[in-house]
């Protein structure tokens, strides 16, 4: 109809139709709607103009969690003075090591030809101080993060990851989440229950529920729902409960609650390995790519070591893997049993979960990519239009191109596409990880502008 009335131009990308003479107005409106906030003014930018931090030494350890700290202790014991950096603003000192807290490593290019200092690690310290670290060896122990989950209304206020819930809950039981439904049945769910404590009203797991979670829940007298599909949020403006369904065609029912805490799946912060050119491999256990690592912790890139859950080690062995990676970096003998790894093969819990979930009804908004507001339906539409593979679907829908650069949405998108394309997730694609890992202020990078001489032209 509109085509007939306004034959000069109808724009249709993603379904929006308008006559051509309104182009200018329409573009102005759309531009206003885009963007997260206004560009900070010149004053704010001036405050950020700080000189960069430079550090040079034998070994840098990225991440001061259990694995990273164990690695640092081992390096110090061998007489080194390593640098350890972590995103957290408050990190306990490790005697004998240099510490850069509040610092995010965002770019680890592949090693250069310089045999003394092959690695340069770039990043920024809060709020916008750039750093450049040159080292002979890098131990990456960046751990993981809580994955998102697809269900109707998953963008509703009240849906948070466990990490988000922890930030909102300074001391056990305190904070704004009063009636939380915890999703998950493993150690992350157990940690969530410990922190939220009496605020937990139910525990719902996509798969089985482990004994430590069962024990905690029964202590609190909280109901448990193992092998359950999360179908949708109850409540229009905010979370008032969850609609659930027992797996295998079981009954539908609801639970009440004011929040949903996602603690069902930990994904690795593996971007630095990708950037450095390390060989990566799929681990079906969580459904994610990890670096290929020897039992000692060596990646395929000489001088780059991996430790902890970000390397694919099970949480209980994180510390031991940190020590082993440090020993390997020192070329020292390694003792103790090899760490246990997240399984490579076998059924991927979430793959089966989504197959079952998505065969059923889909009430409400199913947001695949919260940063760019891409809906599940748009991914399916791209598939119907003949676009295949994650690289193409990412460009077609915009999924994974926002602030988090796909950390939250691409792992699930991979599972969705695997289901649609009837291929295994690693066949659907390898997600190119582009630097930087986290948004890095231009001011921080600008302060490092003299750090990199031109590449030699042969």
């Amino acid at each position, binding site marked *: 109809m509109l085509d007939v009335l306004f034959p000069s131009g109808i724009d249709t990308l993603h379904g929006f139709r308008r006559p051509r003479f309104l182009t200018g107005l329409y573009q102005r409106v759309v531009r206003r709607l885009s*963007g997260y906030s206004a560009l900070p003014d010149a004053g704010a930018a001036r405050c950020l103009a700080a000189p960069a931090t430079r550090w040079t030494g034998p070994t840098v350890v990225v991440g001061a969690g259990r694995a990273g700290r164990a690695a640092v202790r081992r390096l110090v014991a061998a007489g080194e003075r390593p640098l350890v950096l972590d995103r957290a603003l408050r990190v306990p000192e490790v005697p004998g090591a240099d510490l850069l807290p509040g610092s995010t490593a965002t770019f680890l290019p592949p090693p250069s030809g310089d045999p003394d200092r092959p690695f340069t690690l*770039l990043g920024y310290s809060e709020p*916008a101080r750039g750093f450049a670290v040159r080292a002979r060896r890098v131990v990456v122990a960046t751990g993981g993060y809580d994955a998102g989950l697809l269900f109707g209304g998953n963008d509703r206020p009240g849906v948070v990851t466990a990490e988000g819930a922890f930030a909102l809950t300074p001391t056990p039981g305190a904070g704004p989440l009063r009636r939380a439904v915890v999703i998950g049945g493993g150690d992350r769910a157990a940690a969530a229950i410990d922190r939220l404590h009496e605020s937990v009203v139910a525990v719902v797991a996509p798969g089985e529920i482990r004994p430590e979670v069962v024990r905690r829940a029964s202590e609190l007298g909280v109901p448990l729902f193992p092998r359950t599909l999360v179908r949708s949020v109850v409540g229009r403006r905010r979370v008032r409960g969850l609609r659930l369904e027992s797996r295998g065609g079981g009954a539908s029912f609801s639970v009440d609650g004011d929040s949903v805490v996602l603690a069902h799946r930990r994904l690795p912060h593996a971007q630095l390995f990708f950037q450095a050119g390390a060989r990566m491999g799929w681990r079906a256990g969580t459904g994610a790519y990890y670096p290929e690592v020897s039992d000692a912790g060596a990646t395929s890139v000489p001088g780059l070591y991996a430790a902890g859950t970000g390397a694919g080690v099970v949480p209980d062995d994180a510390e031991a893997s940190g020590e082993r990676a440090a020993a390997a970096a020192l070329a020292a003998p390694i003792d103790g049993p090899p760490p246990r790894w997240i399984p490579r093969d076998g059924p991927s819990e979430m793959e089966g979960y989504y197959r079952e979930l998505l065969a059923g009804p889909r009430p409400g908004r199913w947001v695949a990519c919260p940063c760019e507001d891409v809906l599940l339906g748009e991914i399916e539409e791209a598939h119907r239009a003949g676009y295949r593979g994650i690289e193409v679907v990412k*460009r077609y829908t915009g999924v994974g191109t926002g602030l988090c650069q796909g950390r939250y949405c691409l792992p699930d998108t991979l599972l969705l596409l695997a289901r649609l394309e009837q291929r295994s997730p690693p066949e659907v694609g390898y997600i190119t990880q582009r*630097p930087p890992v986290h*948004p*890095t202020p*231009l001011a921080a990078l600008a302060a490092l502008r003299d750090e*990199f001489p031109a590449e030699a032209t042969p």
Partner: protein
Amino acid sequence: MTLARSEYRTIVVGAGIVGLFTAYHLARAGAGPILVVDRGFLSNGGSGRNGGGVRQQWETRSTIRLAREAVADYRRFSSEFGYNIWFRQGGYLFLADSPTELARLARVHAVVRAEGLPSELLDADAVGARLDGLAPGAVLGGSYLRSDGTLYPFPAVWGVYEAARRLGVEVALGVDCRGVTVRDGRVAGVATSAGTVATGTLVNAAGGWSGDLSRSAGLDVPNVASRHEILATEPTKPFLDPMVVRASDGLYFSQTMRGELVGGLTVPHPPGTARGVPSSPRFLTAMAGALVGLWPRLGALGVLRAWTGFYDDTPDGLPIVGADPRLAGFVHANGFGGHGFMLAPAATRRVAAAVLGERVDLDPAEFSPGRFVGRTTPTTVERLQLG
């Protein structure tokens, strides 16, 4: 992957914007069957990695004319192809940071004006009025043309891809062209990863890899693949209308419809395709330094991602369009440097004409593949290159 036929009238290598537009024009002329092969996914070449800039301010009149025609094409694109490419004509603002650059912009301005386009020369204050808070003394003046602009490259690729397929073009993704078979001095077919296919005409639209492809067919060509990097920041509310460029160091940046600042800078890298397209810390820091040095208020913006692609450079800065005089059936649609996206709709009309054996309305001394054969100094050079 299996191909539908064993013989095609024309095979296009490269499913970037140039290859797809070529196939589209050919299909509209009823010149099928046509096959487009690409070893990668859709948009994996320069067409999925560029800055989306479309400008008509050039040093050479022939480039201005092609660009002008392409602007008209892109203005019509949405209705013709049913895809919104977000072509926004916010202008191109060239900045001069030295008297030499100022003189160059004045020369360009004269040529652009002579072609009938209303470009304006701006003094430092007029530039400052458009870009609030520039570093003192960073800019001596500039030139501006309102009808230049930016577009969003992906939907343009999808639009042409889908339109070409609707017209019967077969697009085989994930199929590598491994060599050209020559019989009796003319193209007889191509060897692909999906088998050997017969054809009388091959169009080399392989972007940064087109030099590799021509050379694999025994043709000595001057194409050089050069690596160029680009970054995008986190999206903010609109604060910048034009694409801002500085020819002295190849800096360019614009704000997309989504609110991201997208831009690049010339950073020299070793030539050739062998090293792939990694991002370098040198680019990230030099680009950040250039942006913040020019416009300090950008300092608080966070860089979201950086990526890299190939320019397909020629010695005279002009593309190579037309039939190769040394090998019958081998047609070039390459050498587009850093401006193939904006020229594609117009330039590929001439490629299609060359394939069909029709007259090509371009000066052979400027665009034909033959211009490099046995010659070292080009007649015309387009020097206004960016990024």
